[in-house]
């Protein structure tokens, strides 16, 4: 078994304001092995980005609390490291690609300087060598090196995202956090950028946490998938486990909300209701008010972890023991 780059255990993250406590992440476990890609899927507000920020140690200090849990990055707990150590890790061991390439580049610096900045922070290189490295990185992502003297406004959206990828990979990080890297791009460019990321991941042997709400992207680039709902990981497994043998009603609901290419006239079946308010989450399983298979105990207690096979687990009362509801569910699936 390969070494684990990222190992998150029992992580709880809360945002506090004057009156309320926002339960953003509630006891999650996550593992990423060297060179592997994990997809983190869920609706807006499920806590995906918060999880990623915690790996960088970038949670807003004054407003956030981490009452329990560990985030082991390359064998060190990020949550207890001092700021100075964190700065050495950021961009070097772990780097992040942000959602919106349009606003993630500094408009008054040339792209070459911005890539060179990362290199200079983490490696002892002269300005010239750093710029040279920046040019090489631009070439790697398919942008001519002599465009390094241009400013972000001279690039298109897809190219800006490539620049950000170049920046993220400039110091050859062990783990790449990609926070919906293709959401702001149109579909053809999405495909290009995904293809590029897949190629580079292989080339640099970088592990990746792919945050997305698009199962298409997951199917294309990920090895494993975790489905997140209201701060909980409700189902986790390999691509095959989750795509072909999905267990959790929420995962089922997400797939039902996708248009079916084989039967274009079939109606979409959206999940009714909307994501719960993270300030006061529903009791028991947070999904129970929206769940078609809701049972009495669903509102009373949070389900136990059920291991379906070695790689596949789910948190749902349907699998507690053989009950009528479960039979109903499996029959329908079959």
């Amino acid at each position, binding site marked *: 078994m390969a070494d684990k780059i990222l190992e998150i255990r029992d992580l709880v993250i809360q945002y506090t304001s004057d009156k309320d406590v926002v339960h953003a992440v509630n006891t999650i476990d996550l593992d990423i092995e060297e060179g592997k890609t994990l997809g983190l899927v869920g609706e807006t507000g499920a806590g995906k980005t918060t999880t990623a920020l915690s790996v*960088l140690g*970038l949670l807003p200090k*004054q407003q956030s609390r981490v009452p329990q849990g560990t985030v082991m990055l390359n064998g060190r707990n990020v949550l207890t490291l001092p700021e100075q150590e*964190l*700065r*050495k*890790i*950021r*961009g*070097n061991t772990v*780097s*992040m690609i*942000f*959602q*919106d390439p349009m*606003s*993630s*580049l*500094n*408009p*008054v*610096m040339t792209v070459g300087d911005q890539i060179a*900045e*990362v290199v200079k*922070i*983490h490696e002892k290189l002269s300005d010239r060598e750093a710029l040279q490295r920046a040019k090489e990185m631009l070439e790697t992502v398919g942008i001519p090196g002599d465009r390094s003297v241009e*400013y972000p*406004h*001279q690039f298109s959206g897809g190219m800006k995202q490539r620049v*950000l990828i170049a*920046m993220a990979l400039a110091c050859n990080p062990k783990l790449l956090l990609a926070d919906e890297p293709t959401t702001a791009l149109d579909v053809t460019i999405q495909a290009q950028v995904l293809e590029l990321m897949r190629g580079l991941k292989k080339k640099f042997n970088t592990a990746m946490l792919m945050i997305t709400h698009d199962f298409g992207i997951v199917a294309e680039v990920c090895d494993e998938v975790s489905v997140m709902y209201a701060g909980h990981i409700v189902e986790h497994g390999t691509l095959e486990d989750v795509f072909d043998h999905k267990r959790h009603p929420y995962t089922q609901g997400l797939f039902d909300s996708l248009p079916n290419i084989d039967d274009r006239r079939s109606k979409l079946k959206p999940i009714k209701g909307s994501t719960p308010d993270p300030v006061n989450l529903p009791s028991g399983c947070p999904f129970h008010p929206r769940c078609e298979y809701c049972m009495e105990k669903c509102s009373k207690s949070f389900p136990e972890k059920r291991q379906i096979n070695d790689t596949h687990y789910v948190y749902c009362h349907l699998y507690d023991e053989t009950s009528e509801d479960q039979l109903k569910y499996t029959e329908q699936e079959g």
Partner: protein
Amino acid sequence: MTDTVVKRVTRKEILKKYKKKTPAQEILGRFLANRLAIVGIIIFAAILFTCVFADLFANYQIDALKMNVPERLQGPSAKHLFGTDEMGRDVFARVIFGGRTSLWIGFVATAFSLLVGGLLGAVAGYFGGKFDEIIMRIMDVMLCLPEILLAIAIVAAFGTNIVNMIVAIGLSRVPRFARIVRSAVLTVRDTDYVEAARAIGATNSVIIVRHVLANCLAPIIVQVTLIFASAILAISSLSFLGLGVQPPAPEWGNMLSSGRQNMREHAYLVIAPGMAIFLSIFSLNLLGDGLRDALDPRLKH
């Protein structure tokens, strides 16, 4: 066939028409389209040139300082462009050498207050919280006092010399810079690229200078021109009151003050330095307004 001339459009023209302008070109275009701003920059450049190269037009010791009683209180002539004062010194020479002092002190004082105020404002805006509260409340207290009163108090307390004057004028303008810089920093602080800079491991000082302040330059530049103007006015005011540049060294304010005695018969004695003050401040304000309109296209009156 008709005789109509077919106007041929060359490829170059088409390219020129559709070529995207860089932001710098756009700003320059907007600035050049503003006639008042052009007037301002021309007047200020002329004043700056004559003051910086004053030695080309007159000799400091002979024309501006040395008494020449037989030629006292002469009206403007070819020999003495603005006439002579009550001690026979050439008023033109005194105006340009006085301008040198005013512009120099004004520049240093502005730079001083930009440095101090900018730093305080940037730190307050970037870190927020208690830092912000403490710094900005102190700035509010300073803002309660009229700037000129604060400057007079500082000079009166520590004595009149150039350094004290620079500190007095600079310090009294610190709150204005702090407020402007803080508000500009607040708009940039939460942008994605600042977050991205944090995510690559940049230190706070690097983020503040390279990412935050670099994106707040527009309002800061505008404020610099306006505060430069107000600093020049403050120097003249202090000198007029006898708290600034001391005679016999020429300065616009102390020239006004000494010219007062003979102002009824010899109005040119006060008109010359008065116009110098007026024109330099007027041109700087036009320049500042022009820059503001050019740098911030959303602000259309």
